[in-house]
Structures are given as C-alpha cells and as structure tokens.
C-alpha cells in the first residue's frame, strides 16, 4: 500500500481540481493507497511517521517541487521507496524521471520499476538529481530575452543584454582544486553510479560550445554576488554554499522504460533552445 502525501496548495490548488479524478484512476488501476493531505509541508516528516504502517510499500509525493523536496528530506533516513504524482506547476524530478503528468504517474504506481538515486546535501537539505545556481538575478532582463507580451509592450530589445550576465565565482573541489571563472550558470549533478566521484559540476561561461565539467565529492561555491541555489524552481539556499555528495541512496518508483538522462547534455540543451 502506498502512502500518498499530497500538498493541497501545490500549483495554485491544482490538487483539489484533479483530486476526484486522481483517486478514481488509482482505484481503477487497483492501486492500494492511503491519502494524507499536508496542510503544512513543515510537518511532512511527522505526518509520514504517524501514518506509516508495516504494509506501506512506498511514499508518494503528490504536488510540485516543494512537495517533492519535502518528501525527499523526510525519507532520506528511511528505506522506503518514493513515488511522484506531479500535480503542481513544475516538478523537476518527475520531468527528469520521464513521468509525464499525474495520469501517467498513476500508471507507474500500478507497475513501477525501481531506481536508486544518490542523495546530495546542501546545508541541512537533501536533494536528488541536480541543483542549479543562476548568476542572473535580473528577472526583467531574463524576460526581455524572450518573445512575449512584455517585450512587445516595451517595443525595444536594447535594454536586454545579449549575453547572460556573469558573476565572478570561486569554487573549491575536495580541497584539491580551485576554480575561478566568470559564470553565467552552474549545475551540480549527482553521479548515481557507485564508485568514482559523487558530484559532477557543470559550468557555463559563454554559451553551450564552451562547457566546463569537473568531478568532486564536495564543492564549496562563493561568488562576488549572492546567487540563488535552485532545486527545480524552488530556491533552497544562496551562495556561499557547500554541497556534498552522500553515500546514501533513495529508491525511486519510475516508469518501466525510464533511462537516466546524461547529465552533461541537459544543461547544454537548455542553452541551445534559447
């Protein structure tokens, strides 16, 4: 039986809109579950421990990025697999695992495959998959680069810089290496393979054709400006930060055909789309 931890506030109360359909779909697929709504994500761990039973086969995060991050942190010290039903506006982990919408997620819970994903730690927070650090804090400049009503309304593109803004950043890797550069974007991707370094650091300095990729177990990042650290689109910290790759793994319920995506390609693809 799955324990569904749902965030009723996720994605502008999107869960409330699909709740009946979602429960019916799970029943139709003969998925056994217990639904617990989390009015407050801070209490997720307590609620989980309160409702967990001997026949609980998995904990399922129903919501967006915030719900997923909360459940990952609650589950980090447990040995129960985690599933995801994305109903929020964005769910980076569901996207990364190839879970396309809540209907597909219900199907996965009926016949899941399992995959071990390495856990990382940033401050007190656990994370899986990846973290991103954006050097761009000027949201207006960010939106002006895109075609849209705001750009049409302002009528001029001269105010928008062609290049992404850069921040001079210093990074220490395992006390062995010191990296200095003006960065546009930075991603820390967890290496799920056992053996080897636990973290892959991808830096973008001036576009996709000039990447930097380095490996480490621990990374300390410091910039001239305070830069947000994002898990999905959820801001979890600011620079300066220390990020560690853990030896712990979390088991995720994934589609049968789900293949881990190559971390090094993803960041580059995003830039090519622009």
């Amino acid at each position, binding site marked *: 039986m799955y324990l569904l931890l749902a965030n009723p506030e996720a994605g502008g109360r999107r869960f409330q809109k699909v709740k009946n359909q979602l429960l019916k779909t799970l029943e139709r697929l003969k998925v056994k579950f217990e639904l617990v709504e989390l009015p407050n994500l801070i209490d997720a761990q307590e609620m989980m421990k309160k409702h967990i039973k001997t026949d609980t086969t998995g904990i399922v995060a129903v919501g967006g990025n915030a719900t997923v991050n909360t459940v990952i942190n609650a589950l980090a010290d447990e040995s129960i697999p985690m599933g995801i039903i994305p109903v929020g506006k964005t769910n980076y982990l569901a996207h990364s695992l190839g879970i396309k919408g809540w209907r597909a997620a219900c199907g996965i819970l009926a016949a899941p495959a399992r995959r071990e994903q390495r856990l990382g730690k940033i401050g007190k927070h656990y994370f899986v998959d990846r973290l991103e650090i954006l050097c761009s804090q000027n949201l207006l400049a960010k939106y002006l680069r895109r075609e849209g009503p705001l750009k049409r309304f302002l009528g001029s593109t001269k105010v928008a810089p062609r290049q992404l803004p850069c921040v001079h950043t210093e990074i220490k890797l395992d006390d062995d290496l010191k990296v200095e*550069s003006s960065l546009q974007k930075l991603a820390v991707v967890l290496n799920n393979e056992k053996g080897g370094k636990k973290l892959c650091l991808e830096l973008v300095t001036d576009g996709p054709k000039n990447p930097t990729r380095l*490996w480490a177990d621990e990374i300390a990042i410091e910039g001239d400006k305070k830069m947000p650290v994002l898990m999905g689109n959820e801001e979890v910290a600011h620079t300066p930060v220390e990020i560690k790759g853990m030896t712990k793994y979390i088991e995720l319920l994934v589609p049968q055909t789900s293949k881990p995506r190559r971390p090094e390609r993803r960041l580059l693809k995003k830039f090519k789309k622009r």
Partner: protein
Amino acid sequence: MAKTRADFADFNNPDTIIGRGVKVEGTLQTAGDIQINGEFKGKLITEKDVVVGEHAVVDADINAQNAYVSGEVKGDINAFEKIEILETGKVDGNVTASALSIESGGILKGTSTMHEVEAERPETEPTYEVQEAPAEEAPEQDTSAG
C-alpha cells in the same frame, strides 16, 4: 584551419573539461579523458588521454596514456603511449613517451625520451634473401722450402 583531434568538437565526450575563460589550480587526478581549453596550473594525472586545446595554457606536469597538444604546456609530459604536438602546440618541458610526433609548426623546448620498448619487440626474419657470395679458392700456399 583544418580540424584536429585537439578541437573540442572532435573530441568525443571527455569526462573532464576545462572551458575557455576558466582557471583551475591544483591536482587533477581522474580515470577518464581530460580536455583543457582554459588555464590549468598544478598537476594532471589520468589513466586516459589529455587534450590541450589551441587556446589552453597549462602550467603543469602531465601523466597520461596519450597527450595531444595544440596549446601551451609548461611542464613535463609523461605519456604511456603517444605524445602529439600539433601545429599550434608548444611544449616547454621534457617529454617521455613510446611514440612522439611533432607537426610542422609545433614546438618542443626540452628533451625527449622514448620508453624502452626495443627489448619487447619480437625479432623478425629479413624479408629479402641473402645471397651468399661464392667462396673463393684459397691461394695455395707454397709449402716447398726454397
């Protein structure tokens, strides 16, 4: 300019890349390929290949399987197999390898030492036939006493 192996696009997915505009200092030790297009200072150790790109500046000793140099290297290179200094490459240090090639325009300021592989090479038979010269009759010695 013709693309060489040291161009980024031609080097198929190296594990570690240092991009242009990035400065790295310290000891970089890895089991995979390394591509350097930025600046590196310290020590480079890998079980695979090191590619120093055209705009790269490396101030380090390099230990690798193969080393391909299109940029500047100040330090010794020790390659288990091969060192290639390409036309824009410049090495200011001693190199040790089983094979060394320097393209026209490439610069090596230092000594080169080849790994001793001669002893391991199997002896091969000559492919041409050796014709033995007919033995000349030895002149008869005059043994008669005069």
